């Protein structure tokens, strides 16, 4: 009986109205096991994007751009068109895509190293041109894929593989605040910073990312949402302590909220 019940609920899962899909898997998210470390935030953001794509009904016209880094194989999880891009270049690739096919919804998914170190020039000029694209910026204050080196968003005194005594601002510069940096540009329309440290904040993050996509769909212009995301592996803490670290260390330096709205 139990099994039958499960079968029934699975059958009746309202695929065409994904906003009611509370416990199931949204169609744009593939049914595959995750490869991410325990407590990593990427899976949450992947799912969040897939849900938004389905809720906005844009699965058939969305193209995602995967970064270089932990999230490069986004296409293993997303069930829509995805392209890789060279390290840091997603905003330029997105520019080429959107200019050639303005009817497509183009988003880049970038980590802190990709967006704010090697890809700073592409980010700034894409934002300044006001390209009608969406950037989902996952900030976990560290390079994950390469083994935990300093990122442009690594906090002061934070120990990483390349800041063995902690980040020294006089030597490495201060952690970059990306949305604040590009907010004066007339070309940027929607900028927000959110976090994954609590269910409430995750829901806020989803609302903001959805707003960013809507901003593009409505033709308003460039949108970027930064998401403070846990990396327990390279922060050398438990997944639970990683959430605490976001709240106690990251949020005071990277304040949450909408930085710019249309």
């Amino acid at each position, binding site marked *: 009986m139990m099994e039958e019940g499960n079968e029934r609920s699975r059958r009746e899962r309202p695929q065409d109205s994904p906003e009611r899909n509370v416990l199931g898997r949204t169609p744009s998210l593939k049914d595959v096991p995750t490869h991410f470390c325990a407590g990593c935030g990427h899976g949450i953001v992947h799912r969040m994007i897939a849900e938004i794509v389905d809720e906005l009904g844009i699965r*058939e016209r969305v193209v995602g751009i995967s970064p270089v880094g932990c999230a490069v194989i986004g296409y293993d999880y997303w*069930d829509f*068109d995805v392209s890789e891009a*060279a390290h840091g270049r997603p905003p*330029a690739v997105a520019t080429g895509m959107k200019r050639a096919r303005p009817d*497509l919804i183009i988003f880049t998914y970038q980590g802190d190293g990709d967006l704010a170190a090697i890809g700073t020039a*592409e980010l700034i000029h894409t934002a300044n041109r006001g390209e009608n694209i969406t950037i989902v910026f996952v900030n976990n204050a560290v390079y994950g894929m390469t083994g935990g080196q300093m990122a442009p968003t690594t906090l002061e005194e934070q120990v990483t593989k390349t800041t063995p005594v902690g980040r020294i601002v006089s030597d490495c510069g201060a952690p970059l605040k990306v949305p604040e940096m590009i907010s004066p540009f007339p070309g940027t329309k929607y900028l927000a910073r959110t976090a994954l440290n609590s269910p409430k904040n995750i829901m806020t993050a989803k609302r903001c990312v959805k707003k960013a996509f809507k901003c593009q769909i409505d033709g308003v212009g460039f949108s970027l949402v930064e998401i403070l995301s846990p990396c327990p592996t390279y922060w050398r803490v438990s997944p639970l302590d990683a959430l605490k670290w976001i709240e106690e260390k990251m949020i005071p330096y990277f304040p949450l909220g909408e930085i710019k709205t249309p």
Partner: protein
Amino acid sequence: MNPRVLMCGNDAMSEAAVRAGCRYYFGYPITPQNEVTAYMARRMPEVGGTFIQAESEIAAINMVFGAAAVGARAMTSSSSPGISLKQEGISYLCGCELPAVIANVVRGGPGLGSIGPSQADYFQATRGGGHGDYRTIALAPSTVQELVDLTFLAFGLTEKYRNPALILSDGILGQMMEPVTLPDMADAEPPPKEWALTGAKNRSPRVIKSLYLDVTRLEKHNFKLREKYRRIEEEETRFEEFRMRDAEVVLVAYGSVARICRAAVRQAREAGEKVGLFRPITVWPFPYEALARAADTARLFLSLEMSLGQMVEDVKLAVAGRRPVRFYGRTGGCVIALEEVVKEIKKLREEIS
């Protein structure tokens, strides 16, 4: 037949690209290719296309990558130092098997070099140029008309093989004016592609990628690329032979140097000397077999280049030790003069007589 018009090489190449259906041009200023960005900035809006002056050559080639990924016909151009910056993108285009046309109006190097004409980017153009196992189609025109024809051809080849095609121009060809006949306007709408990212409507999702963490899968992918390169070698190798039938001394030259060599061959022939010119039109694929056939009858080869000697290595590979291969070059932006070629021919005549 379209009327003959007088155009400088950079303008003619740009117009040829437009007529080949290119509607997306992304560039960055650098001498001696600045006419291209200026021409495209004016021309693209006229034909409903897009011009972006990118923030860097790196951004420009990645914009090309994006436009190509969604199925559009896209191009970028630059000159030597800028082409070095584009190599990252070219490697990704090859790995992802995306079409793109990239023009290099070659100038003197290394480093910032000079703005004089040069052929010192031959290795870069014919050996891949960036990281990894790949080749790019490299077309080397020697007149403005051929620059037009090969630009038009480049768009066809790059789409046919899903591999970037380079146009190897130089500071002379880009700047000089010659009468040209432009091709008719091709269909601006490229044919639908079964791999382009157009939104997963009524089909399964597509992925454009060059990452294969499983090394055996990457090897398989690279073997597939090699098969494609073999096909290109078989079907797209182009060259021209001038007064070669009974030539004892064979000049090997491409691009603008071939023009000077052609004049030298004429002069030598008038003096009764058996000199011919072998001119690769594709420098990759290099016409090894045709040049090897020339070694059946010729007695000596002379590679002439505006470099310290790069194509000469391919000439040696083709001739395979059967005949002596000599080299003469000027570098840094200096051009080989007709008298220099004549003098070299005279030296070689003495050597074999």
